[in-house]
């Protein structure tokens, strides 16, 4: 951590390791989009408009199940609600920027850019607004364009992936891998168990709407456990 490194360069360097996890995930989205019958253009439009892998997979799989638009939107947006927390937590650091820069930062606010930035902002209390923006932009540079590129590459691979690779199960593995390391507290564990139990019990509900009910209940269980443990 030499202080001679500029915040932009540090951001780029800190963003690079995220590509290891992003690569299989992004390729898979492209492949899944192609298998769902989306062309290259639609797959790319999806990633550019939304730029949030988990919700893109959710929306894609629900659309394949024939769920109505409103249920697809509600569930996929629920997956992204955690980003409101990211936004709130970065507001004290980036809230002083001009509106267009805040809008651009919001567009690029993904798990990777948030996790890297908040960690460094807390370690570098002396940084100016300009330093903080430069670092954030630095993390975005390798991460965000790569997401688009991987979508296109995956969509081009598309249906040429053989069945024995069981790619249908790569996405569930990715989702579980994203969540499992965070199952360290009772509140997280109970929320996850509630989500699994209710999603299975309510699987009979039409158009995956059981998942939405399960998610809302699990969120409440997590928050309530958290409150009781803290209080």
């Amino acid at each position, binding site marked *: 951590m030499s202080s001679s490194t500029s915040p932009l360069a540090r951001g780029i360097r800190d963003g690079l390791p995220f590509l290891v996890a992003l690569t299989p995930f992004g390729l898979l989205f492209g492949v899944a989009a192609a298998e769902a019958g989306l062309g290259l253009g639609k797959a790319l439009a999806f990633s550019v408009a939304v730029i949030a892998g988990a919700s893109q997979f959710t929306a894609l799989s629900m659309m394949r199940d024939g769920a109505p638009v409103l249920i697809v*939107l509600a569930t996929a947006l629920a997956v992204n609600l*955690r980003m409101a927390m990211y936004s709130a937590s970065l507001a004290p650091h980036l809230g002083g920027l001009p509106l267009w820069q805040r809008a651009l930062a919001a567009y690029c606010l993904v798990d990777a850019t948030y996790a890297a930035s908040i960690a460094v902002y807390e370690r570098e209390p002396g940084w100016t607004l300009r330093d903080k923006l430069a670092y954030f932009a630095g993390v975005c540079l390798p991460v965000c364009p790569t997401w688009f590129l991987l979508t296109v590459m995956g969509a081009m691979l598309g249906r040429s992936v053989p069945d*024995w690779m069981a790619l249908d199960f790569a996405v569930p593995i990715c989702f579980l891998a994203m969540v499992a390391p965070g199952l360290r507290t009772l509140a997280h564990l109970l929320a996850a168990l509630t989500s*699994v139990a209710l*999603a299975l019990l309510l699987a009979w509900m039409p158009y995956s709407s059981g998942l939405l009910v399960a998610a809302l209940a699990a969120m409440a269980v997590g928050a309530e456990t*958290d409150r009781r443990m803290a209080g």
Partner: protein
Amino acid sequence: MSGLPFWTVIVGLGIGTFLIRFSFLGLLGQRPLPPWVLRHLRYTAVAVLPGLVAPLALWPTATGGQTDPARLLAALATVAAGIWTRSVLGAMAAGAVVLYAVLGLGAL
């Protein structure tokens, strides 16, 4: 999957997701969130993703809804490795190894 419903989902999800990200950075400025809201937001990912995966692990579409030992064991291995190693990549690797190992054994 095409036409109006598809574009409605893309545009709606794009705008909705942007507004979620822009919420506090853009509109609410530096006012802190009430603690009960933060408490709920903290559990969104863990509330949605396991429920999304559970039916896929128990009743995979690829096997016509028949419970498949390879997929179920791979899911359990992913969760166990994730909790144990606290690493996303470690969990992914464990899940992939178990998936292909059991699929491979079944093909023998």
